[in-house]
């Protein structure tokens, strides 16, 4: 039971959504954009967030798009993880989506919701980081198309009132060889101990991580180390481990030591799989 009241709005267009956000903001309602709503409902129940109004954007046509358009695969922020998984237009993203929460919740969680949520894992962002995706972001002022790296740093860096509309993934990446591995403490349905998404493009391995540190990331420095052909595979992995962007945490999912052990094990097998073309995908 959510122990407070809020208003519910379901705009039909982006302009409509941006306008109503601004109006509600000005009237002090502290509105939130609402898509799948799974995180908002569970946090509101615990009073971890409060809001005076939710703006349900998931039925706006642009947010429901999922198609190839020119050089891009366009996926609306309101598309559910299940829809992405079932359509399987970008297998790496499809797999990452299929391991967030559980299947029934994937019917509700949207791509936008996973990217913009407060839970630290945001596993759907990993394939986007690897593919230099673009994000289309709208506000009452304008709509902009920006590279993901400019907006996603540890988490989505959106201004108040900005709405994530779409993700544009350059088409040439969607068929790259890839590996997706999610490791948990034990259970399949669980937050990641460590999720790794990796793909091979121009003979270079790219890798992005969730659960390893307290935010999802892709590290060019780590990739450089992993791709250093002057070193043995073992040395490359060791070098990559030295370039982590933050300390590996101890938490309920596992200790830093164990995470690092698993990371080493996974990186070795992932790089090996991608380079030998013998991809198993577990």
């Amino acid at each position: 039971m959510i122990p407070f009241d809020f208003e519910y709005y379901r705009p039909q267009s982006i302009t409509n959504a941006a306008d109503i956000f601004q109006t509600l903001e000005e009237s002090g309602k502290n509105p939130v954009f609402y898509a799948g709503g799974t995180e908002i409902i569970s946090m509101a129940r615990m009073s971890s967030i409060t809001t005076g109004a939710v703006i349900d954007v998931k039925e706006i046509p642009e947010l429901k798009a999922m198609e190839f358009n020119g050089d891009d695969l366009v996926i609306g922020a309101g598309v559910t993880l299940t829809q992405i998984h079932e359509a399987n237009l970008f297998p790496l993203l499809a797999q990452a989506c299929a391991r967030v929460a559980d299947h029934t919740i994937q019917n509700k969680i949207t791509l936008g919701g996973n990217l913009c949520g407060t839970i630290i894992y945001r596993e759907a962002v990993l394939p986007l980081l690897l593919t230099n995706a673009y994000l289309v972001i709208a506000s009452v002022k304008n709509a902009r198309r920006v590279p993901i790296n400019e907006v996603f740093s540890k988490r989505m860096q959106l201004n108040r009132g900005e709405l994530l509309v779409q993700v544009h993934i350059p088409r040439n990446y969607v068929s790259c060889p890839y590996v997706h591995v999610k490791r948990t403490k034990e259970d399949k349905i669980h937050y990641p101990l460590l999720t790794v998404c990796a793909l091979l493009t121009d003979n270079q391995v790219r890798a992005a991580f969730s659960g390893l540190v307290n935010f999802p990331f892709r590290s060019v420095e780590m990739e450089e180390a992993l791709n250093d052909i002057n070193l043995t595979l073992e040395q490359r992995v060791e070098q990559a481990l030295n370039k982590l962007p933050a300390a590996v945490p101890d938490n309920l999912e596992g200790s830093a030591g164990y995470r690092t052990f698993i990371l080493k094990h996974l990186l070795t097998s992932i790089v090996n799989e991608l380079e030998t073309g013998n991809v198993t995908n577990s």
Partner: protein
Amino acid sequence: MEFQSIGNDVIRKDAWEKVTGRALYNADISSPGLLHGVLVTSTCAHGNIKSIHLQGARMMAGVKAILTGDSYPDLTGSVLEDRPPLAKGKVRYYGEPVALVIARSEFEACAAAARIKIEYEKLPTVNSPREAIKSESPLVHDQLGSYKKVIPEVYPVQNTNICHQIKIRKGDINKGWNEAEVIVEGSFSLPSSDHIAMEPHNAKAEILPDGQIIVDTSSQSPFAVRKLISQHFKVDLGKVVVRVPLVGGGYGGKASTNLEYLAVMASKAVGGQPVLIKNSREQDIASAPGKLALEATVKLGARKDGKLVAGEYTFLVGTGAYADTGPRMTSAMAMSCTGPYRLENVWCDAYCIYTNHTFATSFRGFGHSSMTFAVERMMDKLAAALHMNPLELRRINAIQSGDTTPTQVRLTPSILGYLPGCIEKIQKLINWEEGNRIDMGNNRIKAKGIACFWKTSSSPTDAFAAAIVSFNSDGSANLQVGAVEIGPSTRTTLAQILAERLRMDIDRIYVQMEVDTRTSPHDWKTVASMSTFLVGRAVLTAANDAIGQLINLGAMALKCSPEDLDFQHERVYLKENPEFYVEYKDIVHGFKYPNGNTVGRQIIGRGSYIMPHLTAMDQETGKGQPGPFLTPGVQAVEVELNTADYTYRIIKAATVLDAGKVINPKSAKGLVMGAMGMGLGLGSREAFLWSADQELQNTSLRTYKVIRIGEQPEYLVDWVETPNVNGPYGSRGLAEHGIIGIHAALVNALSLAAGVELDQVPVTPELIWKKLREAQNDSL
């Protein structure tokens, strides 16, 4: 003997209700004018309550009353009265109820509860049983000596954290050690955890204008609830009515009385209006009682041929902040301490210990699953020390009739059953002969582990049940009992017993699923896997009573003597010529002669049963008879360990137990498999996780992990049937037994596969990694 109903996979009587969503559980039933109570629980594990700010909440719309610890004077408890329903002065665990908001709607109650601010002055916490018994440990209860004992057999130690201690002294332990050629010792620890019944605890109470208290609750013990409510609220027993519909899982967790006190307090505070209190899942995990913790040390002595000669057991049972049934479970662990092995020299000290954790209540196995983990891990260590096959070691020590239990009960085949038969069967079932550790290549090791168990009722010496059989004018029968349908198909099993005895079609027996203490026959509790035995015996007596009446009236109808008659298929007939008969439908409400004269009366069969010959355990030696019979068995688990990253899969899990007689094979198999599943959860993932300040960290099902579909192994179940002469059709209790040894078997397999001693649960891949690393460092 040819059975009609017994031994058949009879479809549950509640099946169609349950698959259509029509089955009603307590919180599904709304009543007009229902108010809602919402708890505010402690965010501090041990502390003095400095202040409770209620003003903001009181002003909120719809709020009718707010209760705190000052609202009610009594301490409660089923063994030792140590627990205020709402914390008074201090809190002793994270999640302890501190305030209760009663409001017009659930929304208003939740909104107001969110406004209540409580300030605590933190006190040092007691973090584990082992720490709790140190002399410098803080005390969880400094008034322990003043608490009222509810049963005589509880022995608290004043000015300590020990709320109960019990001893087993059998044979001559020193003689045992002198005879021993091999001695092994080990220490084990098992965390507290939760029942996770899918239906969270909830209770509703209403006080009628004439003072009658009506409690509707999701409980395994409606009659115990009635007694306690009557005592604590000083209302005549007959004025308290407790009603229980279908219950959404209990596993022991709904056997104690908790929310019911609060619901009655709440109703009292609002002039007797009905108030419903439902735990959220978070409250259900943190606030409602859970499973005990155990720290155990076991020392075994054996001759070189493997025969056990001495066993010493120390059990430090963590009952959390309040005693509840912790002391009873501590005694139950002591009485079974050896496991089902022949051992003449036994020494056991068991302590029930307070900590600043969620308090414990009965949980499937009643302490036996924790105790058995320690014993069965130790048996594997002994087998290793003796270079013996673990199964062989168990076989040669298996207890048999003529032997005595740790509480010095002399065993007969009827009381004990036949463990060697179980061992023989599981050996084939799990293909033990292929080897218990096989290197499969590719970093894969397959290993098998085994564990034996036994359990009796550990009930009060006067545990009882009753049954009433009545008939409808079409000749069909109604069965009324006081056992709650918490899931195991108890009421269908009882209907099978009745159908068998009345020689009727099971479809012609109707069973009411709900319990109402005013109309249902008085019943101890639906616990201890005892309902089939205890209530089943009452059903048989009631059936016999009804049959006597049917035959007597049949004799009048057929104008012969009762000895000339027999009965079957709802007819009483002449033995010499079954074509002369009278149908039940024509006699169950009296028999009318053609001229209109009517004889006889409504036929109502009455039956009851009290467990005979039970005695309490002696405080100094443990001597006593704690139950009517034992159910022994053996379990095995096969795992596949990946030695590259220490992940593992549970491939197979098997149980063979002596069921006496299986009444409904599919139901029975389902119960044992489900209990195995829960036990494998305890072995592999389930545990309360505490912060440094002893705040419970995993209070949701997102962080408290249970096994989900696809993670289960292939389950194998088989039976040995050594009749229990006192049991209905020879049956023994079975239900919880599937949980008792299974995590021991799992961890025996994992220890063998990993090549490292794993002496705690849950065993996660990380634990195996850590233990191997520690072992490597030690060897360096």
